[in-house]
């Protein structure tokens, strides 16, 4: 059994004073401190980052981390677009399971504000196919196409999608590490300018800097002496075609469905056992699709159910989604998100989620997606 025994995150936002590797160094030192461990306890590091090579011509992150930490342990760079963090976590778990290590640090980090937004937007489209990039499709554009299919197939409007952003902004308001800590209304969402119709600015996650790190271990002694522990019940990955045009259906992310089924199978629990979940809401539509594809809500019903706010903190319900503020309000430093999501679930299960604590959380799920659904990784933690 492998457990999460420590977590540290930077604030997400426009962190002008910090470079990518400033952020990486900060969270690695921070997570060691959180778990009250020394760097010598760590056998390997997995680091998820998407844009270092694309924007800054900075690759070979393994060697960079070795320099920052003054270490010689193996360090592995993982890239899966926006799923880089979740996949880094998955590979770390498998690395330990394979017997290559006992204690591993997983870092997710991204620096997105050193360049003008249109350059960053072009960088992000590296997660799309060459054809999609050629015609000028951006990430918002791809999800906008999915949103339109969903809205037209099931009869929903832009207003229905807005509820996701309102809920997640409320959660961000409760989270001191979130990029946006301002609550918004449905009107605010509907009045915000279009990014790619029907998605508007307030339907879309922002461009943020940030880093998060987790320590996971199978070392009985370290786990026993750790103050805050959450068991990793499963971490499963699935893929799908990178281009939208080759997908079998445009009203779902099949990779999510496959990964979820495998994860619940592996964890031996049911959907109803989950009390907290961090879902990949890169755009409002993505959270609706995720609720359905993960099996929490029936296909086609998310647009209606979201309006009840049943997954919002404080509603007294047993299942709360995106207490961190999601990607929308907490921010979306691409490589960091997957790690932050698992970190948030860990905080919830260990009672350290402050104002956004969901009481009696026993099982939690993190759902991280790459690109427009080409990669999906589902992680289930439990106590």
């Amino acid at each position, binding site marked *: 059994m492998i457990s999460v025994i420590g977590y540290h995150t930077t604030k997400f936002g426009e962190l002008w004073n910090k470079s990518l590797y400033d952020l990486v160094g900060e969270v690695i030192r921070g997570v060691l401190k959180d778990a009250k461990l020394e760097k010598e306890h760590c056998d390997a590091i997995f680091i998820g980052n998407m844009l270092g090579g694309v924007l800054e011509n900075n690759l070979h992150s393994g060697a960079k981390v070795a320099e920052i930490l003054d270490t010689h342990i193996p360090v592995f760079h993982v890239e899966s677009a926006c799923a880089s963090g979740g996949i880094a976590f998955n590979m770390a778990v498998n690395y330990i399971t394979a017997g290559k290590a006992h204690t591993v640090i997983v870092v997710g980090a991204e620096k997105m504000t050193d360049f003008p937004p*249109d*350059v960053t937007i072009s960088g992000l489209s590296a997660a799309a196919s060459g054809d999609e990039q050629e015609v*000028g499709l*951006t990430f918002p*554009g791809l999800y906008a196409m999915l949103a339109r299919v969903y809205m037209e197939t099931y009869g929903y409007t832009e207003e229905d999608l807005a509820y996701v952003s309102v809920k997640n902004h409320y959660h961000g308001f409760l989270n001191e590490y979130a990029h946006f800590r301002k609550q918004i209304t449905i009107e605010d969402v509907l009045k915000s300018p*279009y990014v*790619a119709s029907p998605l508007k600015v307030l339907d879309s996650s922002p461009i943020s800097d940030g880093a998060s790190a987790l320590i996971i271990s199978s070392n009985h002694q370290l786990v026993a002496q750790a103050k805050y522990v959450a068991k990793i019940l499963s971490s499963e990955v699935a893929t799908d075609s990178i281009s939208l045009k080759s997908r079998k259906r445009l009203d779902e992310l099949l990779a999510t469905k496959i990964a979820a089924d495998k994860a619940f199978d592996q964890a031996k629990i049911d959907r109803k056992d989950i009390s907290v979940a961090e879902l990949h809401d890169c755009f409002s539509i993505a959270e609706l699709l995720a609720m359905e594809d993960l099996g929490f809500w029936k296909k086609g019903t998310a647009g209606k159910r979201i309006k009840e706010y049943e997954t919002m903190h404080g509603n007294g319900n047993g299942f709360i989604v995106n207490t961190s503020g999601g990607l929308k309000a907490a921010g979306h430093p691409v490589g960091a998100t997957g790690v932050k999501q698992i970190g948030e679930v860990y905080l919830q299960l260990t009672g350290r989620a402050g104002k956004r604590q969901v009481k009696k959380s026993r099982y939690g799920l993190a759902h991280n997606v790459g690109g427009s659904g080409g990669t999906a990784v589902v992680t289930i933690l439990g106590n």
Partner: protein
Amino acid sequence: MKTSPVKVWRRQKTLRKLLGMKGKIITWTVISVPGHKHKDQAPFPVILVQLENKQRICGQLVEYNESDLTTGKEVVSILRKVHKPSEDGVIAYGIKFRPAS
């Protein structure tokens, strides 16, 4: 990064087979905030089309009226420049769409 002449040349061979084909819009969006390569074109519509040969491709829609941007609208593929060439780079031609009627 400048447009690669080799890529343009390689792509041409597949592209030319898809010109002059009819298709139907499966889904669409209007990009208001583009990446830097398409900065000067915004806002522009991008459509995902199912061609008469069952193949699916995406492309920009040009010479349209608002009412043409609907799922199911019939379009035809045409040859256009796909983005503004750099000052001394090659010109990339590619497929765009125009409403069929």
